[in-house]
């Protein structure tokens, strides 16, 4: 580019800028007077518009973008979900457990939530777990957007999309266009670093490579159940709460072909004394390791057919090191090995006028679903049962197969009917057929009405079926478990006022049969058992407003009614959730922004009563001289700004102190300083 042209452009842009102060409408029109060459050199600010795609989806969808993640300082998916209507999360200092639309049985590992990365299912095949904490296979910084779908919305999703599906869409190499270095430091000596490189080559090949690592020393925590001098008056040392993780991600896209691989390993100390472990012993820790490989190919077959094929491989290893006092003190090792591979094929056809067909097949082979528990070291005992054999050695394998079809029929320009059917077969459950139906009606361009009906099922997983464990606090597998099923009916109304205001209301009714919940048997062992019918219903309201200043507001109210003790089992979800997220540029500054969020969570049921409601506020100050392109970015976040003390429900009767636990205290005020440099 010659300097004369640069000068000319700077001049015309400067004039435009002055004009835009005097008369914004004129400035807009004047851009059209620039030539293509000049336009190519203009730096843009990303317009803040809603993803309209969401309004056409046959479900109630929430989209979170990478800019939201930066503006609100979210550190993991759990913090993202806390800002989303109908969700709340509880932390047991190991995993985050998501309550969804009023359902949160204690000890649930998010098995009813499908968590995908670019369409790849990350739920493992032993626990079916959706990992929404730091153990999630992907660094949250690599996310372009997150689509959160409620209900078993699409026949494309199989078993785990019982309450909903989260699809995390990763950034592209061309979005990085060079490299990024990020470093952050926060409360309790928590340090994190990331290096990412990405590029799109002239031939269209797009590549990305990223590494992240985190180390946290952890906190000193107090657990009243251990409040006696022998156990340090209930105080655990910070080393028992430490956390460490490493993550790798690589991705290549070229001409319809895409190859992704990710690996992560997280080590987390277990300070809570859960599972009968010796309290405040730094030898108690848990490792989660994920590995994924995903190859995808999309091609147009003729003008009106599109084929997508996918091959995937996944592995998940869990290892819990538990120090127990039989007596004598011994080290118990609890493990799971999960391996799977599979193929997916999808054909989208627009051959017939007003019809959009999707046909698909989805096959997964579970090559390993192994659970092992043994004592390491000298002990030949297993929880004081003298035996050379491990306490548990369960080897399983199997498969699942899904066939689905969906037709989106445009009945009129403003009326779409979507009908889907999914057939599932697997080695653990009888064959099933589940329908999904949706009417999407747009009385005007600015309003959308959706009527949704869906049914889904989830077969019991290997953990629920086979995890059997002797000792003082035994657990029993239940190979007789039936799949749980859900039927959902929902009405959604969305109203747009101009392009800057959106209101949404939604009413739903869920009926669950054969709900799989862990209960105490008469002999005192824990076992997963099918429960009879549980109903849930709720109303949700959400409003979103974009302001001309660049500020934006999202606020929601969710009322959700599910029994607190359905069939005598516990369900610890709030009845009301109120949320607000507000982000705005600091007045008078082009480069500073602040993001503030507040969440009110209603009381939750405990085994003997209630734990109190709470209101949290988080605040982030972001310095972002450019939203895109090379340059630095700095943010400071404070979480639980007012240091609210609150509890989440985690009943445990197996504590070594003999005192039953009902709740665990959650984090007080914490902070994080984050620096990013793009080059």
């Amino acid at each position: 580019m010659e300097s004369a042209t640069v000068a000319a452009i700077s001049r015309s842009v400067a004039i435009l800028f002055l004009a835009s102060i005097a008369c914004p409408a004129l400035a807009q029109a004047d851009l059209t007077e620039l030539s293509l060459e000049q336009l190519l050199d203009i730096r843009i600010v990303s317009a803040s518009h809603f993803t309209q795609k969401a309004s056409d989806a046959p479900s109630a969808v929430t989209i979170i973008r990478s800019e939201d993640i930066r503006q609100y300082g979210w550190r993991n998916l759990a913090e993202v979900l806390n800002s989303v209507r109908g969700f709340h999360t509880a932390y047991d200092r190991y995993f985050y457990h998501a309550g969804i639309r009023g359902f949160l049985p204690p000890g649930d590992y998010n098995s009813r939530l499908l968590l995908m990365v670019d369409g790849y299912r990350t739920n493992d095949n032993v626990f079916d777990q959706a990992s929404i904490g730091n153990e999630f296979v992907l660094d949250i910084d690599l996310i372009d957007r997150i689509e959160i779908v409620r209900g078993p919305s699409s026949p494309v999703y199989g078993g785990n999309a019982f309450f909903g599906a989260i699809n995390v869409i990763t950034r592209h190499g061309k979005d990085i266009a060079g490299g990024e270095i990020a470093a952050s430091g926060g409360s309790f000596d928590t340090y994190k670093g990331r290096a990412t490189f990405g590029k799109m080559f002239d031939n269209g090949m797009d590549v990305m490579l990223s590494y992240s690592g985190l180390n946290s020393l952890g906190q000193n925590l107090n657990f009243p159940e251990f409040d006696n001098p022998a156990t340090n008056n209930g105080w655990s040392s910070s080393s028992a709460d430490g956390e460490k993780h490493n993550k790798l991600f690589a991705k290549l896209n070229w001409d319809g072909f895409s190859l992704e691989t990710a690996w992560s390993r997280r080590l987390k100390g277990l300070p809570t004394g859960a599972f009968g472990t010796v309290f405040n012993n730094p030898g108690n820790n848990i490792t989660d390791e994920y590995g994924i490989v995903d190859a995808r190919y999309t091609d147009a077959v003729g003008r009106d057919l599109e084929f997508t094929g996918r091959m995937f491989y996944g592995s998940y290893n869990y290892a819990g090191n538990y120090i127990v006092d039989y007596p004598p003190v011994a080290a118990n090792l609890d493990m799971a090995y999960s391996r799977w591979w599979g193929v997916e094929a999808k054909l989208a056809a627009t051959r017939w006028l007003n019809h959009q067909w999707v046909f698909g097949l989805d096959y997964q082979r579970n090559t390993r679903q192994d659970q092992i528990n043994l004592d390491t070291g000298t002990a030949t005992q297993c929880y004081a049962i003298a035996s050379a054999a491990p306490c548990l050695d369960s080897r399983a394998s199997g498969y699942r197969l899904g066939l689905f079809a969906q037709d989106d029929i445009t009945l009129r320009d403003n009326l779409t009917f979507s009908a889907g059917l999914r057939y599932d077969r697997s080695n653990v459950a009888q064959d099933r057929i589940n329908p999904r139906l949706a009417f999407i009606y747009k009385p005007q361009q600015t309003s959308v009405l959706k009527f949704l009906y869906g049914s889904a099922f989830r077969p019991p997983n290997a953990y629920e079926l086979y995890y059997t464990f002797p000792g003082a606090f035994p657990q029993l597998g239940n190979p007789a478990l039936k799949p749980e099923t859900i039927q959902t009916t929902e009405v959604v109304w969305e109203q747009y006022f101009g392009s800057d205001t959106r209101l949404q209301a939604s009413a739903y009714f869920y009926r669950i049969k054969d709900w799989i919940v862990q209960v105490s048997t008469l002999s005192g062992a824990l076992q997963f058992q099918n429960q009879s019918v549980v109903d849930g219903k709720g109303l949700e309201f959400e409003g979103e407003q974009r302001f001309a200043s660049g500020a934006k507001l999202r606020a929601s109210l969710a009322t959700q009614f599910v029994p607190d003790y359905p069939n005598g089992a516990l369900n610890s979800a709030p009845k009301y959730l109120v949320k607000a997220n507000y982000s705005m540029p600091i007045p008078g500054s082009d480069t500073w922004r602040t993001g503030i969020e507040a969440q009110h969570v209603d009381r939750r049921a405990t085994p003997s009563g209630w734990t109190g409601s709470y209101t949290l506020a988080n605040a982030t100050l972001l310095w972002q001289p450019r939203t895109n392109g090379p340059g630095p970015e700095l943010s400071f976040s404070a979480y639980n700004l007012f240091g609210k003390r609150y509890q989440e429900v985690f009943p445990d009767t197996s504590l070594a102190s003999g005192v039953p636990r009902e709740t665990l205290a959650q984090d007080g005020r914490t902070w994080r300083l984050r620096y990013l440099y793009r080059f």
Partner: protein
Amino acid sequence: MRSFPCILPALLGLLFALPVMALEQDEAAVKAAFIYNFTKFVEWPAEAEGPLQLCLIGETDSLLAALANLEGKQSQGRSIRVRSTGHYALDGCRVIVVGASEADRLTAILGNAQRQPALTVSEIGHFADAGGMIGLVVNNARVQFEINAQAAQRANLKLSAQLLKLAWKVKK
């Protein structure tokens, strides 16, 4: 990992040493200006005369809203008429802009659009690969465009060499 505290101050030093801030423009307005410019570089078949109808498909987002400002402007001696329309009412459209809301239904829309001598433009990702004619993309905070020359040819549209030269990517 414990060495990060040493890196942080170094990076902070770097931060304050950097000059920043160029003048930035609204993405939608720039994209709308691009689309207006494209109309100057397209030759429609002779039967497609009369006012230049710019048809907008999809829910009004900031780009479609910005395009409404093109109403009445002149291009190649023809005046531009902007109208919003559904997927099947494309008769008379000379330029079809597919809104971001329609990403899922792209194949269907392009199937209908190809019956018209109309230039198809969109900011939906991989639009040119999907069979659209001009896809607007953002690279390094700048708007660029990809052209699917084959798709234009099929619709009997001639794109000028200059347009092809300025494109970031041309699919032949």
